[in-house]
């Protein structure tokens, strides 16, 4: 048993962190809105770095890593709040040409039981994958009758509404759809852990720098304890998410269905609650558009609706008790 990062894993994390620093620029979210929330040059750079081909075998042009390591990479992507359908394109790598290299952008949506499908980043998509009980389906995005949702809650994730989602062409079987949900859930939890951590870091930095009553606000217990709660949520979610990655790689170590549900439940909760607390620590400045810390909370509102949502995750864990 060795449940801590090894040197290679630390190097992988540091590499992705550097890449995110140089390649992603969410400074102008309104500019990204027009391109569907995706900057194609950055997307290509992520592809070249191996973000999408991470788990493909080396002889197939991939990086040959496992889900355990993919979780670390997605945590860093979340920490930098890198926009775009990262999880979907990663899952589609090896199945849809060009996804592995970041040459194309692949989206993903669960087929809704009733009502319209709400699809993220549609304007940027080259391919769209639909998951349902029967399997994985491919639907050409430009064939859809879609209506842009006005004023998307997360400016980094524009969404479209599609009333009639066609069946599409079969891409993979029902077991694959189930596997995609688990792997996608773990990687989404990792994005959430990254967001929750970034929100903590931003709140702590501000609490050290902002002075009121002639001293840094972080010296007051009322503020300090908010920051401590943020750290605890992020660390708890991180532990559950790392475990989910390791259990997906080695199901003898636990129940993957329960582990992913636990990770996603705690991850989404941490990202959302930390997003709010980060704004609270920033006070009025946190409520301004220019303050930018709102982007953590807003991304969390999108991620927490993916792969089920809190009630469904809690039911999944309960069913495993």
């Amino acid at each position, binding site marked *: 048993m060795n449940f801590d990062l090894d040197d290679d894993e630390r190097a992988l994390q540091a590499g992705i962190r550097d890449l995110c620093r140089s390649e992603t620029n969410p400074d102008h979210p309104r500019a990204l809105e027009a391109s569907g929330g995706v900057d194609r040059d950055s997307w290509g750079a992520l592809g070249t770095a191996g973000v999408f081909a991470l788990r493909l075998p080396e002889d197939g042009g991939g990086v040959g890593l496992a889900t355990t390591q993919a979780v670390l990479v997605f945590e860093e992507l979340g920490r930098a709040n890198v926009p775009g359908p990262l999880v979907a394109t990663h899952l589609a790598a090896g199945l849809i040409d060009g996804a592995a290299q970041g040459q194309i952008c692949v989206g993903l949506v669960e087929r809704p039981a009733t009502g319209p499908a709400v699809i993220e980043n549609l304007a940027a998509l080259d391919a769209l994958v639909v998951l349902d009980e029967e399997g994985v389906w491919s639907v050409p995005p430009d064939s859809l009758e879609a209506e842009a949702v006005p004023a998307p809650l997360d400016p980094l994730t524009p969404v479209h509404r599609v009333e009639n989602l066609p069946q599409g062409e079969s891409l993979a079987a029902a077991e694959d759809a189930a596997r995609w949900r688990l792997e996608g859930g773990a990687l989404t939890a990792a994005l959430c852990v990254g967001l929750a951590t970034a929100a903590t870091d931003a709140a702590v930095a501000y609490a050290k720098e902002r002075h009121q009553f002639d001293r840094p606000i972080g010296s007051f*217990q009322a503020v*300090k*304890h908010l920051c401590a709660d943020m*750290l*605890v949520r992020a660390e*708890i979610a991180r532990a559950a998410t790392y*475990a989910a990655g390791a259990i997906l790689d080695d199901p003898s170590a636990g129940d993957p269905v329960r582990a992913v549900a636990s990770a996603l439940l*705690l991850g989404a909760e941490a990202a959302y609650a930390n997003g709010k607390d980060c704004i609270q620590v920033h006070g009025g400045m946190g409520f301004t558009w220019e303050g930018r810390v709102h982007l953590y909370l807003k991304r969390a509102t999108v991620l927490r609706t993916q792969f089920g949502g809190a009630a469904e995750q809690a039911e999944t864990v309960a069913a495993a*008790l």
Partner: protein
Amino acid sequence: MDLRTSPHEQAFRGEARAWLSEAVAALPPRPEPEDWTGRREFDTGWQRRLFEAGYAGLDWPEEAGGRGATPGEHLIFLEEAERAGAPYVGVNFVGLLHAGPTLAAEATAEQRARYLPPILRGDEVWCQGFSEPGAGSDLASLSTRAVRDGDHYVVNGQKIWTSFGQVADFCELLVRTDPEAPKHKGISWLMLPMDTPGIEVRPLQTIAGSSEFSEVFLTDVRVPVENRVGEENDGWRVAMVTFSFERGTAFVGDLLRTRELHRSLAALARETGAWDDDEVRRDLGHLGADLDALWALTLRNVTQAERGSGVPGLGGSVFKLHYTQMRHRLGDVALSILGRSGLSLDDAGREHVRGWIYAISMTIAAGTTQIQKNIIGERILGLPKEPR
């Protein structure tokens, strides 16, 4: 990073499992909670069996008489002990988890040779004399006074929250030896024999109706100077060593028992029909997720302890905060499942009602939730100290 166990760890698990199943089957009947003589006999008897089988002080260094096992092996043993329904550390708690490891790290060779083997064998029981009525969260302000008189200290003062005080042979005692020095610099760490004249132990009744801890009154108690551990006035540093043992694997047994409690609560909910309530079922699911995360965090803390990496205390404080808060929520769900049949500390469902009331102490003992948040804020996040 992986969760696989090594062939060596698997072999260790098999050996521990085989021994535990026989040893637990051979246990005498368990004493009643308030039968302190019986509890001492039962707990020290179990410790004796662990010692004879080579499982005492599993995580203690070999030179201290322990087995020098890795934290990973220690974790495996605790898991197997819980699985087998083995007794918990009980009255040996302070000796095995606090005083013993502190002595192993800080005491002289003579002191170690005298005091460590009886702890491991279950021959001597220890209690803790740290907190005082006027020194709780601000422990360093303690005022129990020790005045040097030849080769003795004469101690006067009062200690509180002394677990197992009524059955202990020794007390790890913090005293003020220099009242003029700044508060952290005038404290010494003494080993107090509990049969010394001038000690009065008065059990305190908790809100659970039990008497786990006591007040200890010290009047002109003479303690040999050779019973001091560490230098005079260097006791705060020694106490910090003691606290560092509250990190690492000290909570693992608790967590494993909480997993069992949660499992049995889910079974009870299914029995009573409370399971059909969406809120109850989802709360239980959420608590399951919390337990998964806490177990994973424990594995990470243990790995980091094994490698000596990681920020010291980070995992421990995070664990303690989240664990104790989830215990409150577990208790809340238990009471809502039990409804009006949960209005007794000693009826059907008593483990859950007692678990609920015990949880209330958990966010207070060993550093309150509020003190833990200060520690995280100041020592981990680097936020400035509150003006004091």
